[in-house]
């Protein structure tokens, strides 16, 4: 055995050890919350990681306990997420298509403007939006949340979507134009089908938003029946941290699983989204 080979073995051994430790660190919280949700009793404290007996009581409580309203929150969130997804993606596509395909006077200004506006801390505008919604009599409605989420979508998404649309060759547009397609026809028949991965990415990020945002939701939705899941979960942890922990755990698992599945499908698209607009060497 040569020295090189031994050194290589040691290096690989150490690497596997590191990976193992990191994997435990990555997995532990997820496993802990899953096991907590299956543990009898209500408290945060437990003697062992793996409970002695398993129970599905907390999941049942989530759906049948009339004081928790979890199913209502879940449906509320689903409704808000779906509508804001459709509207938000639509608005983002409009802006990114216009900015990517047309050269008009205010174009660079529009792009810089979008970027700068997206930099303002969102809740800095909270009070104003609150007062605005009050003016329009929309407080404590789901409509308000849908509008706010959808109107905000072009700010975050346009530049990423534009980066993607830029990669669709112009020659396709021109070919369609020669065949007599109008601008709208090109958008509908050429751009939309080709940007399906982009649309999926935008739709899913937009869809996930309402499930995890609680700042605006908490401000706008005042009655418990109208809350979204995020507000409800936050309330559960914040109001009685230790006494209701296992139910919170069950709720957390129920929200996380669908989103985790979405993310697994999305992984590749996410990397593309992250690197879009970055300069490639």
């Amino acid at each position, binding site marked *: 055995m040569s020295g090189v080979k031994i050194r*290589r073995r040691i290096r*690989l051994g150490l*690497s596997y050890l*590191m*990976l193992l430790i990191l*994997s435990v*660190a*990555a997995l532990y*919280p997820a496993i*802990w919350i899953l096991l907590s949700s299956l543990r009898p009793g209500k408290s*945060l404290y437990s003697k062992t990681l793996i409970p002695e007996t398993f129970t599905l009581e907390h999941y049942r409580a989530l759906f049948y306990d009339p004081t928790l309203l979890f199913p209502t929150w879940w449906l509320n969130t689903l409704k808000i997420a779906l509508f804001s997804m459709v509207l938000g993606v639509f*608005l*983002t596509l*409009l*802006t990114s298509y*216009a900015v990517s395909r*047309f050269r*008009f006077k205010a*174009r660079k200004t*529009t792009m*810089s403007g979008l*970027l*700068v506006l997206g*930099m303002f*801390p969102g809740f*800095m*505008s*909270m*009070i*104003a939006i609150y*007062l*605005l919604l009050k*003016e329009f009599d929309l407080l404590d409605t789901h409509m308000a949340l849908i*509008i706010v989420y959808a*109107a*905000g979508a072009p*700010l975050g998404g346009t530049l990423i979507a534009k*980066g993607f649309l*830029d*990669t669709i*060759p112009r020659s396709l547009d021109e070919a369609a134009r020669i065949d007599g397609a109008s*601008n709208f026809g090109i958008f509908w028949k050429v751009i939309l089908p080709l940007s399906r991965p982009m649309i999926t990415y935008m739709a899913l990020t937009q869809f996930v938003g309402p*499930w*995890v945002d609680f*700042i605006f939701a908490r*401000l706008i939705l005042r009655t418990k029946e109208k809350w979204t899941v995020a507000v409800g*979960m*936050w309330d559960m942890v914040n109001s009685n*941290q230790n006494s209701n*922990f296992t139910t919170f755990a069950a709720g957390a698992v129920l929200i*996380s699983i669908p989103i*985790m599945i979405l*993310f*697994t499908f999305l992984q590749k698209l996410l*990397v593309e989204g*992250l690197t879009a607009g*970055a*300069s*490639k*060497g």
Partner: protein
Amino acid sequence: MQRHHTRATILSTLFMGLGQIYNRQFIKGIIFIIVEALSLTYFIQNLGRAFWGIVTLGTATQHFEKVNGIAKLVKGDHSIFILIQSLITLIFFVLFLIAWYMNIRDARKTGAARDAGHTPATFKQSIRYILDYKFAQTFLILPSIGILLFTVMPIIFMVLLAFTNYSAPNHMPPAKLVDWVGFETFRNLLVLKSWSQTFYGVLTWTIIWAVLSTVTTYFGGMLVAMLVSQQGIRFKGVWRAILIIPYAIPQMISLLLMRNLFNGQFGPINQYLKFFGLGGLPWLTDPFWAKVTVIVVNMWVGIPVSMLLIMGVLTTIPRDMYEAAEVDGATNYQKFRIITLPMVLFSTAPTLIAQFAGNINNFNAIFLLTGGNPPNGDYQYAGSTDLLVTWLYKLTLDQNKYNMASAVGIIIFLIVASFSIYNYRRTKSFQEEDMIQ
């Protein structure tokens, strides 16, 4: 025949649409006339009050009046409602002025075309022209309205608030009026000891946090990425799938979860430490340890993203570069320092800057984990782990110090925006965007 365009211009200036009708574009003209008529009725009712409102912010204070010996509450002006109503009206007014200007220009152009002997476009032709040549602008109208109402207007409103004295307890409508105070809020924030001490303290921590959290997640991610993708490691896909899990859990859930995990009394972390004979640590209740905790938790949340990103970059580095280095007898460390690091840094620099800017505003990481606690006695309404953004949140929602919060928000914005604009101007998608096509 030089008269058509002058006449059309004058007519359109007098009343929107008249010039168009003069140019025999009847449908267009009538639409414009309706627009102006509707706008006029709206502005006659509201515009005067809007100017009065934005200048004075209301004049009548709420007070009691004796009516037949019984004190009766007389409602005063609500300065903040007046401010926002005035603002909305003024924005509509600006939009109207733009429309009016465009109408004049249109009439002039068509008039000039008639002078040159062309027949003016029919309504159908105008529509066609818009769809063919003004398509981008038409497409942008809808998103612009949304952004104008829900982003631009609120931002103007908040910027204006920074120059008022809208704050509890002395200037809270409806009981009291709010007034313009110029730069006094900024002066208080930066110079007045009780505020400036908090401001500089929180600002320092915000910067330390932004630097540390960005650096730890970035280099942590790089380390993990290199561990997984080095030669000889098997089951790369499995390791990757496991290590990506923290990223797939919704951030709000994982932060709330961590808050329980690090709970000083009942949390399992301290339980394990005690099990090994070590004393538990005050993870979330001691100023120093709370800072350590937020950084560590942020690493847990943030490393997977960097890992994914850097793994992507690593695959793009050509193999022959490493082979050439090996021929020259480079050690592993040298290969890392001379090839890997510069390549990765070069292609992820924009993301790195974006992450830094994002971390300055990382509201969730702090608010959901510590809520800015533990409290700090030297600070005005801020705790030891509060960032500028979470402080802003407390100032608005808990303390009603709206003017101070707006001033803080403007400062955050200036910091973050300068980073982002610098960053974005450097990226290729902005500079050389017509290259691919």
